[in-house]
Every structure is written in C-alpha cells, then in structure tokens.
C-alpha cells in the first residue's frame, strides 16, 4: 500500500477511536453536573410530582450506562435521537445550526486566511520597518480586545449610528445568498479581526526563520526580487507550520464563536450547545460534542497530512 494511504487510514481509525473516547468523556461530565434535565426544565416551578413525572417521561430513571449505550447504538445507525427538552429531532436541528456555523466560519475564513498570509508576507518583506510594525500593531490590538467588545463597538457605529448593516445576523432559508452574506457581514468582520493576528504572526515568524537559510541567500544572489524570494522559495517551506495554525484557527471559527453568536444573535452551534448544557439535555450535548470533536480531529488530521505532503522527506520515507 502506498505509505500515504496507509497513513491516512491509520489516522482515520485513530480519529474514530478518539471520537468514541470524547463522547464517553462528555457523557460522564454531563452526568456529573448537578441536577438533571427534568429539574432544569421545571426550574423554580418544580414540584416533586412534576419532577418525577417528567423524569419518567424523559427516561432519566434508567441507569446512566444503559442510556449511554442506547445513544451509542442509535448513533452507529445514524440516529442522533430526540432532544429531551423540546422533543425535536436532533439531526434536523443540528443540520440547520451546523450549516449556519459553517457558513459563518467559511465567510470569515475566506477573508481572513488569504489576508493573514498576505499581511504576513508583507510584514516579512518590510520587516522591522513601518508597514511591519503597523500590521503587527493593528492585528495584535484586535486580537487582544475581547471579541464581545469589538462586536459592541462595531454594532454601535456601523449598525446603530450609520445604519449600514443589521446588528441581528439572523439568517433563514427564505433568504437569498446575497441577503445571507449581508446579514453575516458584521460577525464575519469581527471574527476576521479575532483570528487574523495568530495566522499573520505565524506566517511572519515561519518565513523569517527560513530567511536565514543558505538557499535564500542563493536566491537573493541570483538577483530575484525580495518578494519573489519570499513567495517562491521561503513560503513553500513554511507551509507546514502555517497550515497547522490556519487549521487551528478554522477549528476555532467553528467551535469557539459562541460569544460572537450571542452578540450578533446568530443561530449557530455554540448557543445551541450552551443552552443544552444548561438544560442538561444530554443527547443534544453529546451530538454537539461529537460534531465539534469531529471538526477538531478532522482539521488537525488535514493539517498533518498537508505537512507531510509539503515535505519531500516525509513524502518519500526510506
């Protein structure tokens, strides 16, 4: 078998095992939280009878292990089950939410990844001169400000004062693609500001590191322009660390944007997960957790594989 295929299948198998472990861990932790779904739903209006009836209906009286394996059995057949609290089909709810999350993440990534890499290259080209310092200053500032604050500032000026974009990034199926893009303009902008710095700094650092190498000196000596040296000779060798950090940020865009979702009232996965944890809706928490874990594992696996492909020594092992 080709070593690459072997490697990918190994990684996939490991990933599945990891997913299984993650689901068990999530289930255990949710069980360990105080209270259960019945109590969380009834809240202050719980009476002992109502609690008992609701527990019975939700099937919470059965042992934890039974419930976990039932869930596992279901998911192996592609059935995510029903929410405990509102009885809606989880697959359907998650489908919509995940679609929204991926849409926002993609929009932010399409803008931020090329921009970050370009700014990184620019920073190297003008290293330690004013463009480099300006780029670093701006991106480091935006990454240091908490995202909800950036969100509020953007809402205040762009939405309330100027009225250019809606502060509610609500999207639904009846909207056209253009309308959707318009609706998510502000959150995508804020997310771009949040993820820009790390990718930009990593690009800059990785390339600067390579700029000391002998082959760069050769390229310079043979008369290539500064930017050509960076783009053609340094960048391909820096792909591995850059891809790693890009994937980390993409994963963040998918799983870590609950604050931005709340500020812009965006119907994504983050809020869904938080609400479900609060209400101890275990099947939903598990489903969200597994999806998030899959995204993380998948993107990291992709980064690994790209690093290997980008490195001839790893591509052709002796």
């Amino acid at each position, binding site marked *: 078998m080709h070593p690459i295929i072997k490697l990918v299948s190994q990684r996939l198998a490991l990933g599945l095992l990891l997913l299984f472990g993650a689901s068990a861990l999530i289930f255990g932790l949710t069980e360990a939280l105080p209270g259960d779904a019945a109590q969380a739903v009834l809240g202050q209006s719980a009476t002992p009878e109502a609690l008992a009836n609701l527990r019975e209906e939700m099937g919470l009286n059965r042992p934890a292990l039974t419930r976990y394996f039932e869930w596992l059995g279901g998911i192996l057949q592609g059935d995510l089950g029903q929410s405990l609290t509102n009885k809606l089909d989880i697959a359907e709810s998650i489908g919509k939410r995940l679609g929204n999350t991926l849409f926002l993440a993609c929009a932010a990534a399409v803008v931020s990844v090329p921009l970050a890499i370009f700014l990184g290259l620019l920073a190297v080209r003008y290293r330690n001169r004013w463009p480099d310092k300006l780029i670093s200053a701006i991106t480091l500032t935006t990454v240091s400000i908490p995202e909800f604050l950036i969100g509020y500032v953007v809402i205040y000026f762009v939405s309330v004062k100027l009225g250019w974009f809606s502060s509610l990034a609500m999207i639904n199926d009846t909207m056209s693609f253009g309308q959707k893009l318009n609706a998510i303009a502000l959150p995508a902008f804020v997310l771009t500001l949040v993820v820009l710095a790390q990718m930009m700094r990593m690009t800059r650092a990785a390339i600067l590191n390579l700029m000391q190498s002998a082959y760069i000196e050769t390229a310079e000596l043979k008369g290539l322009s500064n930017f050509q040296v960076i783009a053609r000779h340094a960048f391909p060798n820096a792909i591995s660390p850059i891809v790693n950090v890009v994937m980390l940020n993409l994963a963040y865009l998918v799983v870590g944007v609950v604050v931005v979702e709340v500020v812009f009232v965006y*119907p994504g996965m983050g809020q869904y997960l938080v609400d479900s944890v609060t209400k101890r809706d275990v099947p939903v928490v598990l489903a969200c957790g597994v999806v998030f874990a899959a995204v993380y594992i998948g993107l990291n696996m992709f980064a690994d594989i790209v690093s290997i492909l980008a490195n001839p020594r790893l591509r052709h092992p002796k």
Partner: protein
Amino acid sequence: MNEQLTHMAGQVTAGKLTRREFMGKAAALGVSAAMASTMFADAARAAGPKKGGDLKFGLQGGESTNSLDPATYASSVPFQNGKQFGDQLVEVAPDGSIEPRLAEAVEGSADAKVWTFKLRQGVEFHNGKTMTSEDVLKTMERHSNEDSKSGALGIMKGIESMKADGDNFQVTLTEPNADLPYLMADYHLIIQPDGGMENPGAGIGTGPYQLEVDEPGVRHVFKKFANHWNPDFGNFDSVEVIVINDATARTAALQSGQVHAINRVEPKVADLLGRAPNLTVHSTAGRGHYVFIMHCDTAPFDNNELRLALKHAINRQDLVDKVLRGYGTIGNDMPINAAYPLFDGSIPQRDYSLEKAAEHYAKSGHDGSPIILRVADGAFPGAVDAAALFQQSAAQAGIPLEIKREPNDGYWSEVWNVQPFCASYWGGRPVQDQMYATAYLSTADWNDTRFKVPEFDEMLFAARAELDNDKRKDIYSKMGMMVRDQGGLICPMFNDFVEGVTNQLEGWESDPTQEMMNGNMSRKMWFA
C-alpha cells in the same frame, strides 16, 4: 397656526395623513419635532387601532431547548409565544379584574366551591376544529392529572373534580376558593385541541396568531389567524418573537429599528435609552420581588430575633437606588405590595435601623460566627451586588455576613429551596391568595422560607372562603403582618418591568400582572 394644526390632527384621526406627512407639514409650521410627534400620537390614538404591519419583539429569556408545550413554559419567550397562539379561559385585566376570553362568563356557587365557566361558542382552533367543553376539560386534566409535568401543577392541587357539561366547564374544589378564576388565568393553561394530549408542542390553539416558524432559541413567527373569535384582538399581519439574550444586542436592535419592542431593559441603561427620540422606555410597577430567604426551621434562622435583626440591617432604599437604579419600590418583608387587590396600605414600613438590628442581634444570642448567604446573579440581576451592600450594612450593626457565590447554572435546583439562606426571585401572582398559597402555606412545595404556622394556614383558608371583600382585606392584612414580623422573608425591593417600545406603536397599557403588557402587546397595540 393652531387652527391649521388642529385641522391636520383631525386629518390624522380620519386616517388621511401619514406620520411622515404630518411631521413634514408640522415642521413647515415651525412646530418642534418632539411636539409634533406627541400631537401625532394623540391624534393617531384618537383614530383607534389600525390593522397591518409586521411586529417584531426582541426578547431575553429564550433557549434552544424551549418547547411550545404550554406545560413547560418557564421563561419570557415561551410565555410570549403562548400568548400569540393561545387563549386561556379568562385573563387578568390590567386593573386586576377578571376579563373573559374563551369563557364568556364565570359563576361561583355561594360557598365558592363549585365554579362554572360558560364557554364561548364557535371558537375555532388553528387546525380548523371547533372548541368544545371536552377540549377544555382535557386541557385542565393534562395540567393536573397524576402524570402531569406542568408548571401549573402546583396551582391545580385544590381541585376535587372537573366536568364538561354541554357549553359549560365546571370545577369542584375540595375547599372553597373565591379566587379560582384567577388560577384559570394562569399562562400555562392555554386551551388546546383535545387538551394537547396527543401532541402538546404543536403550537395549535385559538389565539389571534397562528404558528408559522418555530426555531427554538432563535425565532418564532406567527401570522394573523383570520378566524379568531375576537376581531378586535391582533392588529398585525404577523408577529415575530426574536430571541436576543444579550442585553446590549437587544438595546442596539431596538435603537436601529430592527425590532419594535424589547423586554428587560437594564436599569443602568434605561435612562440613556429613554432619551432616544424614536422610542419610549416604559417602567411598570409589578408584583415581582427580589428577596433573601431564610429557612425558619434551620439554625441559626430558627430564632426570630436573628431574623428580625437581619431584616432591620438591610438598607432598602439604597438597594432600590443602586441595584434597580430607581426602577422599583422598597419592600416590606412580605410578598405583597400595592399592585395586589385588597392590599392594606396602612401596614407600617419596616425601617432600616442599625440600633434595632444590633438590639435584636444581641437578644438572639447568636455566637458571632459568620452567617452564610448564598447568591448568584441568576437569582436576580444584581444579586451579588445587593448581597455585598447587605453585608456592609449588616457589618455596621455588628452582624457578620459571609457571602458565598454560587454558579448560576443549577441555582434553582441546588441552592434555592435547599440552602437555609440565599438570594431568590418571585414573579408574583395575580392575587394574594395565590402568592401565599404558593410559598407560605405550611404544606406548599415552594415554601422556600419553611414558614409553617398553623394559625396562618387557617387564616388563608378563611380568606379564601370569605366572599365579603372588606373582611378578606382585613384577614390579608393580618397575614401580611405575620409574614413581615415572623417570616423568613427579607424582601428589600419590588422590581419594575422595564421595557423599550418604539414610538411607531400605539396603544400601550400598563399591566402589573406580567411583563410586556402581560403578553398582550400583539393583541392590543397597533402601528400608528
């Protein structure tokens, strides 16, 4: 100029002039925008409700886990949803009286034990079926039978039997209760086809708007139901309830005109928001109260001297000023205020007195060990700050309070009604009987102060059976005094409902029962 303005106002009333036209012409006459706006509003109000438009609410209190099943309602968004698609038998009117809805008339027997609701005829559900007394009976059964998991189960306990009898629905109680109609006005008790036995979360009722989109935690869209039994209810083409849990996002959405009304305006921004020209901040005195509760049966709170010491050591006005920013009134250690019918205003106000506090504290003989007060901001907004203020004033009276911060998550199941001294919130009830029966009766599940006084229980039952309002008022007054002087409730303040509404909407009414005009904005208001 005056004649011209009067003429123009007349045209508005007759529906011949739009707001924009009116404002433009008024400006040409040199009238300030603010004044023209007021004049337009007056003239438009005189014209009466207009139909049409899409109403959008931006509300705090919705989760992805919400269901449309009325039995599960516990927060603002589900409450508001229920008011769109459903009707109860009766509703509590803004003045505290009982207003007919699906029941045309309510009649109690002389001993207040048997209550007959005469049902409105020809009422249509959104699925096309006509409402019958069987539907009503099944609805009430679903909320009160042995398998019930309803939030209304607690108030349905005193029912001995129910029956559907032609056009009537009849309830027989185990004990007399003159306030039974108020119990039937509870927002959980929405009449559903077949009582919602089959599919309670379908969102089918008899309300003025029918469900179109249900995305829990995101938005709920309702469109006008053409066959509603009361054509005066519901002036809008559609109503959209948008979940905006973040306070800043909510205010921004109102300011930028993306929603027409928001709930829970934070007191700290209410003044600033009220200055915006295109909207009004309404503050409505309600029955909800922010409290600290002590278990009367647990040491050291089993000592009434210590309870009194703590009650005297809290600076109520300071809390109203700082925690509620003035959007509320001071409490008197009883769960009742002037918003309740039959309230006795002559009950003396508990004073803030460090001397009395110190005196009672000395009498209590407490060993001086710190008294643990558990709080979380989930108990009520600003609870942690309120506890800190309480701690400081108590310290001046020599009473050592120790604040223990608890997580919001799980507060209602792990701390409230479990720990002996903690912060809490009560939403209030439409009548005194219901409030006392819910939380101060010895046998009540939610007796969160463990206030168990047989004499108090007897008075509660006596008041229920009493149909003479003067005598009832007298009994309630004594009960109030008893809770105030012997109970475990420290009630420093009653909070107002603070809501932001765009000036495009007309027909606002203050309603102390629940927030947002008791959920009736979409029924009673209209676009100018």
